[in-house]
């Protein structure tokens, strides 16, 4: 007879656990301090200016928000697409999704010119604004995933977890469409203004979200010494590979479309072949480190069954994803507005020239603080509620698990969980 899965809180009383929480707490405090300083002094102490109006905080925030929606993938695959192997991972997936979104939103709010007016943002709405839609999409996402988690964790409501999961799945697709459309609907800027940005953001969410999930899952199982079988690791590795490839495909199509239109040759040359940081970040950061190398790690047999390599690939995806966000958000603004097509133009207001931006320590501090807050929520959550199975050994989670493989499987899984 198959053993049952038991979900249990982590003990969370080891010095290691508290050390990690203390470190995260310090990063959160530094982030809050940075936000206070920026708010107090005004944004002139940041790298942002009237040319580059969205800076490093937005790179972090949009990354976290996009990853939040993607982190829910694992739960969706279980509830919506009925894949049994993902079921034990579903509660953690929901928790990570909510945590990342909260972390991202904190950054976004604290970077506002008037963060004290959050209540205004919640009470005055212009429903033609994609930002206004997003306020509902984000808060709605948190509420829906909370209900979904409740349905998953409360045995009496388990039956309802499937419709709740389906609803959350559709909602998060709309959410990432909304995030992509913040840029996609900007008609005036040549680097944006493309409907394909919405699907690009959806695919990026799949990849970035899963990468964050992989690291947290493996990290937590390794830290708590709970068994993590290679069936899970292997499945996540393959899935990550597929997501990386689809992101690459959509980004390629996005750039090919732009390259075909003569009027966009300037901005494409700027992003893809410019004498600037953006081209470097795109090719070296996003394409090579963030896509090609992790793609090989995720697809080649030599890296099979290795949690360590999956973490490596996931870290590279995150680094590449941040690089890509930087290129999209900052690079897209740095390229000057084509206010007078056919003319060369200049002014004291930096018209017609490439915008300059150097991220300040405060913006990076705020971004890291938000990310630390997201991780802290996850670590606190798994101590308070039963998000995690005691064991994810192959014998428990793999529907195709057979007794013959058992002998060979057990020690390997044990070793990898500690890898």
């Amino acid at each position: 007879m198959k053993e049952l899965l038991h979900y249990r809180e982590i003990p969370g009383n080891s010095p290691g656990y508290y050390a990690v929480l203390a470190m995260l707490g310090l990063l959160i405090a530094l982030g809050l301090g940075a936000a206070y300083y920026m708010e107090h002094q005004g944004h002139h102490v940041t790298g942002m200016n009237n040319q580059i109006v969205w800076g490093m905080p937005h790179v972090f925030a949009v990354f976290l928000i996009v990853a939040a929606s993607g982190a829910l993938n694992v739960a969706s695959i279980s509830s919506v697409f009925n894949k049994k192997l993902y079921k034990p991972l579903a509660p953690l997936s929901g928790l990570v999704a909510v945590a990342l979104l909260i972390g991202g939103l904190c950054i976004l709010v604290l970077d506002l010119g008037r963060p004290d007016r959050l209540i205004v943002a919640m009470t005055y709405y212009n429903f033609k604004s994609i930002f206004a839609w997003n306020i509902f999409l984000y808060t709605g996402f948190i509420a829906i995933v909370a209900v979904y988690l409740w349905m998953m964790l409360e045995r009496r409501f388990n039956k309802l977890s499937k419709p709740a999961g389906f609803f959350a799945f559709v909602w998060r697709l709309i959410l990432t469409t909304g995030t992509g459309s913040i840029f996609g609907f900007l008609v005036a800027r040549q680097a944006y203004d493309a409907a394909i940005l919405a699907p690009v953001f959806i695919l990026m969410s799949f990849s970035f979200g899963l990468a964050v999930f992989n690291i947290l899952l493996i990290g937590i199982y390794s830290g708590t010494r709970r068994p993590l079988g290679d069936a899970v690791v292997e499945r996540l590795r393959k899935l990550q590979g597929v997501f990386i490839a689809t992101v690459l495909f959509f980004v390629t199509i996005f750039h090919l479309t732009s390259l075909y239109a003569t009027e966009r040759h300037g901005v494409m040359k700027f992003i893809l072949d410019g004498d600037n940081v953006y081209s470097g970040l795109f090719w070296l950061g996003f394409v090579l480190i963030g896509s090609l190398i992790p793609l090989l790690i995720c697809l080649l047999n030599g890296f099979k069954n290795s949690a360590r390599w999956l973490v490596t690939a996931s870290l590279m995806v995150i680094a590449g994803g941040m690089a890509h966000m930087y290129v999209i958000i900052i690079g897209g603004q740095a390229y000057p507005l084509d206010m007078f097509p056919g003319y060369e133009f200049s002014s004291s207001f930096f018209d017609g020239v490439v915008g300059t931006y150097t991220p300040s320590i405060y913006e990076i501090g705020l971004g890291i603080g938000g990310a630390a807050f997201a991780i802290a929520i996850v670590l606190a959550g798994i101590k308070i509620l039963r998000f995690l199975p005691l064991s994810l050994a192959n014998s428990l989670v793999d529907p195709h698990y057979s007794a013959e493989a058992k002998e060979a499987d057990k020690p390997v899984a044990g070793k990898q969980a500690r890898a």
Partner: protein
Amino acid sequence: MSQQENKIDEYRRRFLGKGAALVGAAALAPGVILHTIAHAKPADEAVTSKVRWGFLIDANKCAENCDACVRACDEENGITKFGRPQTDAQWIRKITLRNKQTNHSITLPMMCQHCEHPPCVDVCPTGASFKRADGIVLVDKHICIGCRYCMMACPYKARSFIHETVTGQAPDVPRGKGTVESCTLCVHRVDRGETPACAEACAKTQEGPAILFGDLNDPNSKIAKRLASEPSSAVRADFRLDPGVRYQGI
């Protein structure tokens, strides 16, 4: 005797004459003032879409080294600089254009174009960016949260974010750190029946007036007549935002 009396009579006459003139002036003055005010919009009357304020800017008349409009705007609206050009606000700026094919170069003032379909208003999450019935695009400083999405959306780079504490504000022009602002078409002056500061300053220059202010909806206004009889264009007309600011000479 008679000489003395005649003198007194003369004084009397003069006194009465001057007195009458004063009384007359005092009686007429309120009427004259009222007449002026009647041409402006009374303070308690809502703005209407019957008028649409706008500029017609003739780049041919805009001298390269003249920045009278910029200086007038800064003074009128209390736009102080901090010596940080990257973050200092600019409501109006002079742009120099050079045609890449012909090398012909011109300069022109650029400010908020007060679009009929303003993208900044579309994207503003709280509705702080809004368009008045008379076509003036403004920011409600009380509900702007400083998200800068409008700055991302504006095709004319017309808006500035206030990056630091501002002091010495003009009484009619509230500004505040952490909010976004742009040319208000000197709405406070327009509501008093005056013309925007830049247009007024431009008219006083040797080459001017390059900036003509008026009601685009009134077929008898000077601006509407000139737009009807002379060629003009809108910047990035392909966006079809129908800007209230039109240009000649580009």
